[in-house]
């Protein structure tokens, strides 16, 4: 039963035993770690759809492999997958293999996305308005653009069954998904949970951000005094989470621990945060309370840091207030400067970046920064830097005021 559950606790420790990542920097942990560590930028001209009439013409596109890795998915199912589904499968394949999981009858899946298979929805609409009318392939597009189909693809690919929960909290979706997965394990609802965040570039969403003039016509420069907007990217990240007991009983390698999760809602405006970052502050505070750590124990923040005027100033105000006297010693960066904003994938991808930083003890830079925003009371990481990290914090904020914060801990 999903409810009630007879044995509820709040005491299980949640560890990560597998992590997969796909971004414009590359596929897999190694390629991405090398890219983030060096602060490489992955923006390039958009080739996936026509941007000739858009104000902005660049994004961080992923290079997909010509052939997906072998799984239990049927050939026809693979053929029907769109970019988002492929990126999700690639990331999950990496995480699954690293964890060494076997198929089970009850493996919950928690996904975060804003768009699911949006490109198939766009294909559907373009065909639907053509004359003469044709329904050829339309039923398949209806079924496959929906995010539950991408979740079902994972179940089929890896041979498991279990509930699929899809959280669509805009750009906080990926972090909410990890947080919710963590809650399921902590409270004894599951021993293992597969969680991921993903989104592919689509014409509708690109055009949407362009219409809002939220995209930078130049370079995305989070926390820069002269920042002028965000850059869009695409990608996916997947994590295999399990109880510490489960990981130890399997003798699994532990990549890190999810030690805290907080969420809050900003009701100030649909697309603008409260100027003082009230909900961001609440979310970070909830996460540290949940992790039973103080702000001064956090060694690094991977900020939401989109590069828009409003987000970065509100987030900076929230970090200043939350970190208080510790702010001056708290390095912060936004990896969106390298790979763009991955929307529903951002929270999950940035959680994997945090795991990389914890495992390998370095700080990913915001390498496009030129003039730090004066409101920032914290140092912004500008160059690849080695560091001693035990706890790191990752922020994700979205349209509609969805705010989520994760705290990850080094496993040693």
């Amino acid at each position: 039963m999903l409810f009630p559950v007879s044995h509820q606790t709040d005491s299980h420790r949640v560890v990560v035993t597998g992590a997969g990542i796909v971004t414009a920097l590359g596929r897999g942990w190694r390629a991405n770690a090398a890219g983030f560590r060096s602060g490489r930028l992955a923006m390039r001209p958009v080739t996936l759809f026509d941007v000739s009439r858009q104000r902005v013409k660049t994004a961080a596109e992923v290079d997909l492999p010509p052939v997906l890795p072998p799984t239990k998915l049927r050939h026809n199912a693979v053929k029907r997958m769109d970019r988002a589904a492929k990126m999700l499968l690639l990331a999950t394949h990496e995480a699954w293999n690293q964890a060494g999981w076997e198929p089970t009858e009850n493996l919950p899946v928690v996904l975060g996305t804003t768009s699911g298979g949006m490109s198939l929805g766009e294909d559907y609409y373009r065909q639907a308005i053509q004359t003469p009318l044709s329904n050829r392939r339309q039923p398949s597009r209806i079924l496959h653009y929906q995010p539950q189909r991408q979740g079902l693809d994972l179940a089929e690919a890896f041979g498991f069954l279990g509930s699929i929960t899809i959280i669509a909290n805009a750009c906080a979706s990926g972090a909410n998904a990890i947080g919710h997965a963590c809650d399921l394990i902590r409270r004894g609802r599951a021993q293992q949970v597969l969680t991921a965040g993903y989104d592919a570039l689509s014409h509708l969403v690109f055009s949407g951000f362009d219409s809002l003039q939220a995209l930078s016509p130049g370079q995305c420069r989070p926390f820069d005094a002269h920042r002028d907007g965000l850059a869009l990217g695409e990608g996916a990240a997947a994590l295999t989470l399990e109880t510490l007991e489960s990981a130890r009983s399997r003798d699994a390698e532990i990549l890190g621990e999810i030690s805290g999760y907080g969420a809050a809602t900003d009701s100030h405006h649909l697309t603008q945060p409260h100027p003082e970052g009230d909900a961001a502050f609440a979310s970070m505070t909830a996460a540290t309370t949940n992790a039973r750590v103080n702000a001064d124990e956090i060694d690094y923040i991977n900020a939401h840091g989109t590069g828009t005027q409003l987000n970065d100033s509100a987030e900076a105000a929230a970090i200043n207030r939350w970190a208080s006297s510790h702010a001056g010693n708290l390095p912060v960066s936004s990896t969106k400067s390298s790979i763009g904003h991955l929307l529903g994938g951002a929270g999950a991808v940035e959680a994997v970046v945090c795991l990389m930083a914890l495992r390998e003890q370095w700080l990913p830079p915001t390498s496009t920064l030129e003039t730090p925003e004066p409101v920032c009371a914290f140092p912004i990481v500008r160059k690849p830097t080695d560091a001693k990290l035990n706890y790191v914090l990752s922020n994700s904020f979205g349209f509609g005021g969805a705010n989520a914060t994760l705290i990850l801990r080094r496993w040693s």
Partner: protein
Amino acid sequence: MSKVFVCGEGAVSPAGWGMDALRKAIAQGTALPAKDVSRPGNPTLRIRSVPPAPARPAFAAHSRLRRTSPIAHYAVSAALEALGADASALGPNSSSLGIIFCVMSGCINYSRRFYDETLNNPATASPVVFPETVFNSPASHLASLLGTTAINYTLVGDPGTVLQGLALAADWLVSEKVEGCVVIGAEERDWLTAEAVSLFSSQAEASDGAGALYLRRKPRGNPAIELHGVTQSHLFCKNQSRAEAALRARGELCLNGGEQLLCDSLQGVSRLDRDEVAAWRDWTGPRLSVKKVLGEGLMAAAAWQCLAAVDALRHGNLSAATVSVVGCNQQAIAGQFIRSDSKLDSELLGEKPS
């Protein structure tokens, strides 16, 4: 183990605005009339849509709701009805009320409109429309209207997601993340949705609206209605057919004793209904099939099923009501509500059906 109670219900449906209209339509049991909806190149699509509100709702004057599409109005109206006086009792920046908003198609009006504008000329696509295309915009508007800053999830999936949402709300309540939680299922009319439904059966008719259930840990009302259980979500996939999933959801529920109601998701289309019919073939008690009356409202329809179950317990003599959702393309799942004054409580977790 803590109990969770349904403390308020709200509905917007093709029957009208409010629970009274829903109750009346379900009691009459006849399919509500559909109307034609225009579609480029083909005028024959049919929708059972929500009638205009009898008066402009007061919430429509709120700055966040002036330009929103119907789904936000339906969701807010249903939620406010379910919350009753508690809606105005929330202070600004209250962190006590969680929101779980469930959709399948979501904000389809503005998504279609914005993409159409993009195809015509992205340089003139409306920046006002785009934010309303996001799945969680109705939940955000509701949070703003209520002044709640508590946890707020938008869940996407097939109609069984409403029952997942109820289970999640119950978990938030039991773990004391929130003191109350409103769970909403909603959809809005559009020719794209109507056409999508028709591609899977020419007999099926799309509909729209919303249903909301307000959950708390303390009972309210006489009789109090308890959310007794929600089964696992049983997936439809290569590893498990839709028929097997429906049977497993059915088999997880224990249904001994007392007169009980079944609120199923049958819509009167034999090809689409057959797996659920087979799973519940031995059911001999009373049964409601609200989609036969209200149409294929996707996530809203699953919420109406739950409302019909709760309402029957509140206003009738039944001891328990089961909601079965055999969804479109994801899962079979079931939930159970009981009257807290019934003697069924301990019996329900008994023998499984054969």
